[in-house]
């Protein structure tokens, strides 16, 4: 498959929905846009899965003559692995949106007459923005030079700003959208400044050419550009000093978009950091590993403590996303530290990176599942307060059961795959017992995992088993509609399927790692 094909399918479908939108509105069938979106995402997913099953060799296409100046795209196992996660969760969110967004734009009670009129304009551009968001994310993983990466990055970023501010009738969404826009754009500009310095150093932006110039070691300018690139991508990945947009932006977005933002958009930041650190600059020549481990520990500890204090369930899940980013960053930091300090232990570093990449998948599944189930509760109760949701479990058994699987996966309860990804990182961290830094980081990691498992299970206990505090309980509450329940059940099945088929998934990750560590 051509790397361009996937992006063309998604962007083409986005243009088709924009053109046909007035027609669908005239015949009062707005769901048709959603159907087009689902078909585009499904065909993308099938193409990518076929490539992963066949084990396609890495490919590259260059637009124009083969000079260091032209843009190009690549397709290797790492981009296939991440693109499958992105388009899979995108498909689930698109199916979910067809029912949920109608509720959001038509039935949610609203006081102000002006905003009621605005809202009646409906789902203009929603599906087109969803498609360009996924196209941008997949493009980021397929870019083969820094400037193509920046362009797709901005495609993804602009779509997500508008989707966060989509519910413009609520003050929360527009404020969070503005804050997200300013902070994330500053981050992208920092990355662009780093890219500009890199361009000045090497005269090219193609990954292979830049790698030749800076991999073995570099001067102050290369280190400056590395720091700027890490800060820039770290803002989107929500690493702690740059995280403050996330707990506002993710809850304010419509629920399917929250699932995509929390599940996969922040992972593009992780991908860009991983690629530039391990593939372009190399952890051996640049000593960024202690800083990375420190940032990871800071991120997960801060976010886990902050998550406990939340009363809003979406805000709670947003903070727990930051904590999971902390786990992944710690895994990458441990790998970088091992590669720099113990050059003979490449297998151990690969173990830590395998754990980090597997956790990307586990967190995408678990967090997507939790956010989508939360949307079902919002549909029925119209509240995000955990107190009001207490004891809803027996009324919505299927939703709550899927939420339970997602939360158990996030908590890392042993049979599920969320446990194995954390175990891989821990076992890599304990691989060199004489190293104090790694030992301390691993112990803090384990403490954080236990704390996180505690609050996930506590949340599940409150939702599923506690007696409702409201008068009369949730007597009138019904199970969520079938169209919204389907993605939940598929994602819950995927959680279990990944656990059963852990070996093929690990093989896929191994071949993805060969791309990075080669």
């Amino acid at each position, binding site marked *: 498959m051509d790397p361009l094909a996937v992006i063309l399918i998604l962007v083409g479908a986005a243009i088709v929905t924009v053109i046909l939108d007035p027609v669908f509105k005239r015949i009062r069938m707005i769901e048709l846009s959603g159907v087009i979106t689902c078909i585009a995402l499904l065909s993308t997913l099938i193409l990518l899965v076929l490539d992963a099953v066949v084990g396609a060799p890495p490919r590259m296409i260059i637009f124009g003559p083969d000079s260091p100046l032209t843009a190009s795209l690549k397709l290797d196992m790492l981009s296939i692995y991440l693109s499958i996660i992105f388009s899979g969760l995108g498909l689930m969110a698109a199916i979910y949106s067809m029912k949920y967004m109608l509720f959001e734009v038509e039935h949610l009670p609203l006081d102000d007459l002006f905003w009621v009129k605005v809202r009646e304009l409906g789902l203009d551009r929603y599906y087109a923005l969803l498609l360009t968001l996924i196209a941008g994310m997949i493009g980021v993983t397929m870019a083969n030079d820094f400037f193509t990466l920046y362009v797709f990055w*901005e495609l993804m970023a*602009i779509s997500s*700003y508008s989707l966060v501010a989509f519910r413009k009738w609520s*003050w929360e969404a*527009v404020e969070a959208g503005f804050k997200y826009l300013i902070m994330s754009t500053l981050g992208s500009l920092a990355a662009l*400044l780093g890219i500009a310095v890199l361009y000045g150093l090497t005269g090219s932006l193609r990954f292979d050419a830049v790698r030749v110039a800076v991999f073995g070691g570099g001067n102050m300018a290369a280190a400056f550009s590395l720091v700027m690139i890490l800060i820039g991508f770290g803002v989107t990945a929500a690493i702690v000093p740059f995280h403050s947009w996330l707990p506002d932006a993710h809850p304010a977005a419509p629920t399917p978009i929250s699932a995509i933002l929390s599940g996969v958009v922040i992972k593009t930041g992780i991908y860009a950091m991983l690629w530039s650190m391990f593939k372009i600059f190399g952890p051996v020549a640049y000593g960024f590993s202690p800083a990375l481990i420190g940032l990871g520990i800071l991120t997960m500890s801060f976010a886990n403590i902050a998550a406990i204090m939340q009363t809003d369930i979406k805000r709670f899940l947003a903070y727990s996303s930051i904590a999971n980013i902390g786990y992944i960053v710690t895994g990458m930091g441990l790998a970088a530290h091992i590669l720099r300090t113990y050059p003979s232990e490449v297998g151990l570093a690969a173990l830590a990176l395998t754990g980090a990449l597997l956790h990307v998948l586990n967190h995408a599944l678990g967090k997507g599942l939790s956010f989508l189930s939360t949307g079902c509760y919002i549909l029925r109760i119209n509240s995000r307060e955990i107190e009001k949701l207490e004891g809803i479990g027996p009324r919505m058994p299927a939703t709550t059961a899927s939420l339970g699987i997602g939360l158990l996966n996030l908590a890392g309860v042993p049979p599920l795959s969320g446990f194995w990804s954390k175990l891989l990182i821990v076992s890599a961290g304990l691989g060199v017992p004489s190293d104090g830094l790694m030992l301390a980081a691993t112990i803090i990691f384990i403490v954080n995992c236990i704390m996180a498992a505690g609050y996930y299970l506590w949340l599940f206990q409150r939702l599923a088993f506690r007696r409702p505090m409201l008068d009369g309980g949730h007597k009138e509450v019904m199970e969520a509609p079938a169209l919204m329940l389907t993605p939940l059940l598929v994602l819950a099945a995927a959680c279990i399927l990944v656990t059963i088929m852990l070996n093929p998934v690990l093989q896929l990750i191994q071949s993805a790692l060969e791309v990075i560590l080669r």
Partner: protein
Amino acid sequence: MNLYEIYFAGSLLLIAAGLYIIASKRHLVKIVIGLEVVTLGVNLAIASMGIRIMDGVIVMDALAQSMIAISIAVAAAIAALALSIALNIYRHYGTFDIRKLRRLRW
């Protein structure tokens, strides 16, 4: 001092000025203007990195030119989106003052 060093220093000054505007101003539109100033600074940095001297003539690299053109287009899209969100904030609160907002704390 080389020509590109002067340009690069200028671009860093522009970025610092833009960051100062974003940090100190209380008006939503002024914050968007600050963002644009930072973007201009980064564009100038790209330009300073693309300067080549061929046979005594100063030329700019083709990659730098295309990067700046695309970066300007992206910045225009972001500015349009930021201003539309600012307009929606004005419709909610009747003011552009960020101190009147409920949750906009950096």
